[in-house]
C-alpha cells in the first residue's frame, strides 16, 4: 500500500490555546464585577456595555473592510468585545450613548486599526477611547450615580429611566442630577485634601467605606476575584498586577505614614477608582504592555506610580487611563533595556 505523506515543518504537535479563548476568558472573568456593578450602580453598565460592544464591533468590521481584509478575521478573536467591556467599566453608569460611541470608535478605529490592528497598537484602545471622551465630554464623565447601600432616602433611576437617559441624555423632571449624582470618593478625597480638610474628616463622610468608597470597594473585590482567576489560568502573569500595586501603594504608604492627616491611606488608593481593574485587566493588555518579564514588572510599577502622582497632584481624580497611556509610550524602551539573560551568555555584572 502506498501512502501519500504531507510534508510540513517541526514541531508536528499543535497548540491547544488560541487568542479567542484567551479573550473569552477575560470577558468571563469580568462577569462577577459586572454583576457587582449592577448591584451598586444599577443597570447602567449593561447599556454602556451594549453600546460600546456595538460600536467597537462595527468600528472593527468597518476598518477591516477599509483595509481590504475579511472582517471575520478580526472579529472572531473577541478582542473588540474586551475593549468594549473595559471601556464600559470606565464610564459612569449613566452615560449617553453618543459619548460611549465616541470612545468606542476612537479606541478601535484610531488607537487600534490605524496602527495596524491587534498586535500592532501602541496604545491600549479602551484607555485611548476613554481619555478622548474624558476630555471631550467632561460634564457627562463626571456624573456618577451614588452607589446603593440600602439607605432610606436613596433614589436610583429605574431600568426604564436609565435606558431613556442612555438614549437621550435626559433624566425625568423628578430625578434631577442633583438628586442622584454624587462626587466619587476619589473626587471627594482630592478636593477635600486640597481644601485643607484632614484625611479623617473626609473619611467621616458616609460615602466612605472601610477602605475606599462604599460600594466601590466591593466592586473592587469582585474584579480581584476575576483577576485572580485569570492569574490561575495563566492568561495574565503576576508581574504587571504586582508592579501596579507596589507602584501605587508603596509611595502612598510612605506619605501616609509620614503624615496621615494630609494623605490618603494605601487602602483607600487600592480600593478606590479603577486601581484593581487596572492592575488585573487594563494594564495587562499584552499588546500595549511591555513584553519581557522584568519589563512587565517595571511597566506595572510605572503605571502604579503615575496613578499615585496624578491622584495626588494631578488635575484628574483617578489617573489610570493617563498612567497606562504614558507607560504604553515607554514600552519599547523598557523592552529594550530589560532583555532577560540569555542562557550561555555572560551575565551582565561580568561585563564591564
Amino acid at each position, binding site marked *: 500500500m502506498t*501512502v501519500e*505523506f504531507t510534508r*510540513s515543518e*517541526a514541531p508536528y*504537535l499543535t497548540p491547544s490555546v*488560541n487568542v479567542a479563548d484567551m479573550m473569552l476568558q477575560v470577558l468571563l472573568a469580568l462577569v462577577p464585577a459586572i454583576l457587582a456593578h449592577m448591584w451598586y450602580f444599577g443597570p447602567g453598565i449593561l447599556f454602556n456595555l451594549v453600546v460600546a460592544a456595538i460600536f467597537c464591533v462595527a468600528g472593527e468590521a468597518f476598518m477591516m473592510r477599509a483595509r481590504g481584509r475579511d472582517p471575520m*478575521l478580526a472579529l472572531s478573536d473577541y478582542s473588540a468585545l474586551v475593549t468594549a467591556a473595559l471601556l464600559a467599566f470606565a464610564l459612569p453608569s449613566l452615560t449617553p450613548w453618543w459619548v460611549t460611541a465616541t470612545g468606542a470608535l476612537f479606541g478601535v478605529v484610531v488607537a487600534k486599526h490605524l496602527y495596524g490592528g491587534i498586535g500592532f497598537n501602541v496604545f491600549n484602545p479602551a484607555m485611548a477611547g476613554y481619555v478622548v471622551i474624558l476630555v471631550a465630554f467632561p460634564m457627562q464623565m463626571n456624573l456618577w450615580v451614588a452607589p446603593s447601600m440600602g439607605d432610606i432616602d436613596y433614589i436610583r433611576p429605574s431600568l426604564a429611566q436609565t435606558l431613556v437617559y442612555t438614549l437621550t441624555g435626559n433624566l425625568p423632571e423628578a430625578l434631577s442630577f442633583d438628586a442622584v449624582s454624587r462626587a466619587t470618593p476619589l473626587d471627594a478625597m482630592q478636593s477635600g485634601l486640597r481644601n485643607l480638610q484632614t484625611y479623617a474628616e473626609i473619611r467621616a463622610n458616609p460615602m466612605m467605606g472601610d477602605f475606599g468608597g462604599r460600594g466601590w470597594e466591593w466592586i473592587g473585590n469582585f474584579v480581584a476575584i476575576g483577576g485572580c482567576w485569570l492569574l490561575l489560568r495563566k492568561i495574565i502573569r503576576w508581574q504587571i498586577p504586582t508592579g501596579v500595586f507596589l507602584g501605587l501603594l508603596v509611595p502612598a504608604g510612605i506619605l501616609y505614614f509620614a503624615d496621615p492627616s494630609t494623605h490618603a491611606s494605601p487602602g483607600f488608593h487600592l480600593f478606590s477608582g479603577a486601581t484593581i481593574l487596572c492592575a488585573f485587566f487594563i494594564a495587562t493588555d499584552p*499588546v500595549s504592555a511591555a513584553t519581557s*518579564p522584568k519589563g512587565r514588572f517595571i511597566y506595572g510599577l510605572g503605571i502604579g506610580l503615575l496613578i499615585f502622582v496624578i491622584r495626588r497632584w494631578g488635575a484628574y481624580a483617578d489617573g489610570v487611563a493617563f498612567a497606562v497611556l504614558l507607560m504604553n509610550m515607554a514600552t519599547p524602551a523598557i523592552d529594550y533595556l530589560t532583555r*532577560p539573560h540569555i542562557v550561555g551568555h555572560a551575565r551582565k555584572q561580568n561585563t564591564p
Partner: protein
Amino acid sequence: MSAPTYDLGKLHGGMRLPANKLASTHDPIRKMPLPAQLILPIAQHVGDPALPIVAIGEQVLKGQLIAEPGGKLSAPVHASSSGTIVAIEPWPVSRRYGDKAPCIVIDCDGEDRAIASVTDQPAWESLSANELLARILQGGIVGLGGAVFPTAQKLMQALSCELKYLILNGVECEPYISCDDMLMREYSAEVLGGARILMHALGLDLCYVVVESDKPQALRRLGEQLALLGDARIVLKQVPTIYPSGGEDQLVQLVTNLEVPSGGLPTDVGCLVQNVGTAAAIYDWIVQGKPLLSRITTVTGDGVVHPMNVEARIGTLVADIVRFAGGYTEHARQLIIGGPMTGKAMSTDLVPLVKASNCVLVLSATPSIGAKSPCIRCGDCAAVCPVQLLPQQLYRYSCADDEKKLRLHGLTDCIECGCCDLVCPSHIPLTAEFRVAKARIREQADEKARAERARFRFEARNQRMETEQRAREQQLAQQRDTARQAGPAEIAAILQRKQQQQDGD
C-alpha cells in the same frame, strides 16, 4: 541496587508534554529479520561524507568497511550484512526529507556472513586513550541521540579540555520516542560498560547517568546493574520529565547548574555528554567487536498498527520497518523521522534507516487549527523558552528583517526545540520562522564576507596601481632631473641613442 540522586540545577521554561510512549514500550525490543536490500547513505553523520571504497558487483561481508572517512570530521560506513554491491547512486534519505543523496545499495545474500573479527585485541583497560579513539573511529560510531556527531572526534576534542564529568544522556524527553528507554531496560550492562570505557579513555572519575522520571523501569535496571558492577564512580541521576531537558546544553545545565557558553560546547564547562545508545555501541564494538550495524528505533504513532521498538540493520527501508510493525493504519498521513518536536517529515517511506534514526513516527493529519493571527505579545513563548529568549521579540524583528536586533536578542542561541510554537495562541510557526531567519543571517554573513573579500582585493589593486604610478612618476622625474643637469656631452649621447632607435625602426 543504587538509588538515583536528585540534586539538580535549574532549567528555564520547558514543557510537560503528553508522553505517548506507552504504546511502544509494551513489548520487548523486536529484532527485525534481514531485508532483501540495504541502502547505506555515505553521509550518516555530521561532517564530510564517507568515500566509497567498493565497486559495483563486489561481494561484501557483514561488518566490512565499504566507505572510509572522507575528511577530518567524518565517519566510516560498514556493510550491515553480507551480499553484493549493486549500485552506488542517489536515493531518498531522511536527512534531506526524502530527497536524494548518494547511497551504496547492497543486495543481501541472506547468509549474513560476518567478516573475521580481530579476536586477539587486548582488553580495553590496557589501551591508551589514543588507541581507544582510533578504534572508536574505525567502528563508525557516531552520536546516536540524533545529532550523529562522529564520536571519535568528539572525544578527541574533549581530551584537549579540562573535563570533570562524563554525562550519559538517557533523558529522551521528546514524546513518542522510547528507544533509549528500551535500550536501558534491556542493555543496561552495555550502557554502563560503555560508560566505563569512556571514563577510561578520558581519564575521568565521575559519570552521571541521567534518566527522566517517567522511565522507572530503566532506572531500576540501571540501578541493579550498577549494584552488580559496584563502580562508585558512576552515579545515577533522575531528572523531572520536562521537555527539552535532553538537549545537550540543557542537560549540562540541569545536572551541573553551569551554562554552556553561547556558541561553545559542554566541554567548555568540563562536561562531555554522550547518549546512552552511543555508550552501548562503544561497548559492543570495543568489547564484543560488533561495529555499529544496527540500531534500536521506535516505530509508533497513530498511523502504525502495532507500535513497538525494533532493532533493525542500518540501511533497512523505513517502509519495511513499518510493514514489520503491522503496516499503516488508515489515518497515516505524516511520516516523521525523529520526534514530533524536532523530527523531519518525509515525502516518501523509501528512505533507509540510518544511524541517526531514533524514531519512525507515523501520525494522522494535523488537526486544522486555523490560520495564524498577529502576535499579541502575550509572552507565553518567553515563559517556556529553555534558553530564555524572547520569541515574541525575535518574531517581530524577523518580520522586519532587522539583523542587528535579531543578533542582540540571541536568534543564534535558539535551539529550535519547538516549545514556543506549542504555546502560541496566535498559532505562529515560530520555530520555522527562526530557522528561515537564521539561514538568512548566515547568507547575509556570507554575502558580507564575500563583499569584504572583494573590497579587500579592490583596495589592494588600487594601492598596487597607485604604487606603480608613483614609481613611474618618480622614474620620469629622475630622468627629467638627469636630463636637466646633463652637460653637452650627455645630451649628444642621448640624441645619438634616439637616432639609433629611429634608424632601427
